[in-house]
């Protein structure tokens, strides 16, 4: 009986109460429960300026759409850049500048400021609406990826495969929801709804 109970308890713990059989299911459960946050991260953006993302002193009335990229990507990240370019235009058109921001975070340790600037130029990323950045400290980035349960692995062709999708995150790093990369318009609509629902904020 003890062996059965111990086995059941172990399985229960591994699978988040028999609800998550894959890591992505576990991430979805945790995000839905409001239990996932990205730790504060010091970054350098496409203009070489330092910034602190998700810090405790960030303005509370901002929402970010965060994606994970690497500038040498020739497929998914290129498409994602085009999507973010569309969103950037919508943010400006809707008067959401300073309220909703786009954050592209590189997980490739090879990406330097020149690479980030090149990616930014290619997709017309303009600060402060859209920041393309890399972590100052690789160990801090690994800690963020581990906390967010994002795993990036080499794809054997010089690039990476990673899980995670598009994250809607508040200014303090609290992950509100994730979307597939194709559902970027839904992510933007969700971010606007979150701002509208927050007390004291204009829609």
């Amino acid at each position, binding site marked *: *009986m*003890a*062996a*059965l109970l111990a*086995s059941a308890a*172990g*399985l229960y713990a*591994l*699978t988040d109460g028999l609800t*998550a*059989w*894959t*890591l*992505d*299911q*576990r991430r979805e459960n945790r995000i839905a429960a409001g239990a996932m946050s990205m730790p504060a991260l010091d970054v350098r953006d496409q203009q070489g300026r330092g910034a602190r993302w998700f810090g405790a002193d960030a303005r509370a009335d901002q929402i970010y759409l965060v994606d994970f990229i690497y500038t040498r990507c020739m497929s998914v990240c290129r498409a994602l850049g085009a999507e973010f370019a569309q969103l950037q235009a919508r943010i400006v058109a809707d008067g959401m500048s300073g309220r909703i921001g786009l954050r592209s975070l590189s997980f490739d340790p090879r990406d330097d400021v020149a690479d980030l600037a090149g990616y930014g130029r290619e997709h017309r990323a303009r600060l402060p609406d859209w920041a393309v950045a890399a972590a100052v400290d690789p160990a801090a980035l690994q800690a963020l990826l*581990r906390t967010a*349960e*994002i*795993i990036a*692995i080499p*794809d*054997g062709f010089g690039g990476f*495969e*990673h*899980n995670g999708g598009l994250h809607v995150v508040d200014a303090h790093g609290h992950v509100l929801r994730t979307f597939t990369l194709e559902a970027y318009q839904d992510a933007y609509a969700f971010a606007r709804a979150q701002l509208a629902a927050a007390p004291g904020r204009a829609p």
Partner: protein
Amino acid sequence: MSHADGSLPSPSGRGVGGEGESKLTNCFLPSPSGRGAGGEGNRRMSRPRRHSGLSLLSWLVAACLLALPPVRAVLEGSMALHMLVLLPAVFALGVCLPQLLPPRARGQLAVALRPCALALLVIATAGYGAWMLPISLDLTRLSGAVNLAKYATVLLAGVAAYVACRVSPWPLVLFFGGNMVWMGLTVGMLFLDAETRLCASYLMGDQRVAGAGLIAWSVALGGWLLAWIARRANHSGRAKELRESAVNASDVGSH
């Protein structure tokens, strides 16, 4: 029928670890002859100790090899190697661990654990089966504590499996072993047919190779299980073999 040295043959003929019959005569079956004081008895008694010394060294070498960070990095870095080489190797280490004990200690262990046959089988199947889940593999890559738990539970599963095969009725072993075969086949086919990566830590190609390998391993395990069951079932119920199949001399007639 006893062996020339007075010890009794094992009931199964072959162990989980694929050991030969001569090794199994030193397994959980203490010699009924009571020899040990005479010269010939001493020479026969000394053979297991030299064998155990070599085995302990081999076990330690194998364990240290698996524990080396570069080796672990290679084996854990591929889903196929992780599931088809590393986990079975750690399980095999667990199977071999009780065999390092002196025969008397093994016999005492078997006597003590015989009432726990069901629990041993649960530990063996749950301790290994948990690490066939996609989320488990990813969590071992994210957390050092979970990775350590993996090694500990799979090693324990191997120990439990070895003891369970010695002390459990064969229908119980068939039930649990059969479920492990079924689980391996199911998970293997899932990995092979899934259209997306189920483990964030590994690529699709790796997942498919792991799936095919799991199916192959499960078929092999099923075949071994059937052969083992056939030998056990063939021996059970026959008066002459009741004595031979006793885990302990006092268990004669208890089947």
